[in-house]
């Protein structure tokens, strides 16, 4: 157990280090730097040189990388070009908002997906499964910005149930944000649940055909007990790692969905930062998203490890 645990932790750490390297050197390989991109073509040589000196861009790349990576370790994400404020300060509130949105999405979407997946998998190709799977495939095929816009069209313009676009600022109290995240979260749940429930459905179908379920059926175990005690626990395990992996999509989807609904989170900040040509800010956000992804997957891995003894043994 300890060895497997250490291995996962080590891998996560290595991945995070590589993310830092990739995010830094991906831009290093590009023509131009934070100053030339931000100041644009009209900048004079002296302005450019002054900016580069201010940001330390006149130093050799390896030295700058060491300084940047060292700052990140201490929680200093650098200075935004456009806003001329520490990035950690700009990002902080938005990170909270995005976490609220993601939290609502996960808290409702995951149980919903598990339930629907089990329902669909128990009677594959039945009318209920055809409906659930049909909607799920639609949700997986259509891009986020279309499903988000359709949500606005349906729930805001036609039905008038909720405001289509979020108008509150990024420092609004958490409760207001919770209210503002209804439609964005509904959009994310729609897509997230589709991905997870398809996986759960497949694993329910597989488990239903396994020997131990056949055995339980032959012994005359009541159907409800069989489902709750034999089928569901065995479908949850594979679901955990799928949920971890789906987080990567969720984080990417957040960027688009936040922009659709004008939600004041990290994703929309990233879009604004690209529009402002603010390279350090874009870098910092990419880094944060990467870290969140790695940590979520580490969490999912560790959870699977504690719940499934077989994973511990196989690794050794």
């Amino acid at each position, binding site marked *: 157990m300890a060895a497997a645990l250490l291995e996962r932790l080590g891998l996560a750490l*290595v*991945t*995070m280090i*590589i*993310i830092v390297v*990739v*995010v830094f050197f*991906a*831009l290093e390989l*590009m*023509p*131009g730097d934070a100053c030339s*991109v931000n100041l644009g073509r009209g900048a004079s040589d002296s302005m450019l040189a002054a900016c580069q000196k201010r940001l330390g861009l006149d130093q050799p790349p390896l030295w700058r990388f060491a300084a940047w990576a060292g700052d990140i370790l201490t929680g200093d994400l650098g200075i935004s070009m456009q806003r001329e404020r520490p990035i950690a300060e700009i990002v902080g509130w938005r990170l909270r908002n995005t976490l609220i949105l993601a939290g609502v999405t996960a808290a409702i979407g995951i149980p919903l997906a598990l339930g629907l997946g089990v329902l669909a998998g128990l009677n594959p190709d039945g009318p209920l499964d055809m409906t659930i799977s049909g909607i799920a*495939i639609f949700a*997986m*095929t*259509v*891009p*986020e*910005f*279309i499903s988000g*816009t*359709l949500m*606005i*069209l349906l729930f805001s*313009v036609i039905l008038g149930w909720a405001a289509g676009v979020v108008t509150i600022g990024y420092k609004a109290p958490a409760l207001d944000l919770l209210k503002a995240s209804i439609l964005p979260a509904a959009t994310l749940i729609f897509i997230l649940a589709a*991905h997870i429930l*398809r996986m759960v459905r497949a694993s329910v179908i597989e488990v239903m055909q396994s020997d131990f379920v056949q055995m339980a059926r032959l012994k005359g175990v009541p159907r409800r007990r069989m489902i709750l005690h034999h089928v569901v626990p065995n479908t949850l395990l594979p679901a955990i790692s*799928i949920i971890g*992996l*789906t987080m*990567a*999509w969720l*984080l*990417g989807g957040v*960027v*688009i969905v936040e*922009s659709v609904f004008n939600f004041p989170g990290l994703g929309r900040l*990233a*879009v604004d*930062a*690209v*529009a402002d*040509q*603010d*390279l350090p800010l*874009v*870098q910092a*956000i*990419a880094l944060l*998203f*990467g870290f969140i*992804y*790695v940590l979520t*997957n580490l969490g999912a891995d560790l959870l699977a490890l504690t719940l499934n003894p077989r994973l511990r043994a196989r690794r050794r």
Partner: protein
Amino acid sequence: MTARRPALPLPQVVRDVLAQRSGRIGMAIVFLHLAVAMAAPLIAPQDPTYQDASAMLQSPSLAHWFGTDRLGRDVFSRTLLGGREAMLIATAATIIAMAWGSAVGILVALIGGRTDAIVMRFIDAMMSIPWILLVMLFVAALGSSSAALVPVLGFSYGLSAVYLARAAALDFVARDFVVAAQIRGHARWAIAVTELLPNVRDSLAVQGAMQWSWILLAVSSLSFLGMGVAPPTPDWGQMIADARGIMQRAPWALICPMLALSSLVIGVNLAVDALARVTGVERTRRVLGA
């Protein structure tokens, strides 16, 4: 000679795909879209960029089949033309992604050992950054032109191609015919090309077709965010972003590009479903943040 899983000849694959219902419907949708995209400049009834100040937000009529948008442009003409640029970018980017992705994936599977482990760790780490942020990182540095999007998307989407090509090739690297080629002293690249590539062809074809639809969605999403196809070139993603503010008064300006993009993507999905069934390849869905 060595025993291999027989790879079906191409005409046979096409025939088998068309024999399936989803294959027929999917291929019909895709070909209709391709035909419209190619013929669009000839058949579009109006100039898609012409702004008619006297005909703003008109509902569908004989003069404007799908109505007009907030600048009085003909939505029907714009919808016909709106997929061209995105499809071109997606095609070029898919070729790049599949080329470098499968080359690296197959070679890494063949070499194995430490090289494999190190390369895959890097790929893993890059795939931990959601695709859109990876792309935005490059778009911020290079600016958002179609010319810049092709290599950026080609690189980003190649990452998942590496995964897939490696997994597909791993099924074969330990087989007799590969070992025999190694003993005969063939070079690595030669083994990759003559022994492995024909065997992973089907997986790569399925993946390539899926990649095309993902990249198309990526381009549309970026256009929606204002980082993709730039005006005045009409584009579905951009049209949807543009029509959002007027959805109450002119829903047609929103619905038309949505239907166009969605139908194309659904068509590709149906066709790929059939292709995967015919070739016996497991089909990957859009899960890994791709």
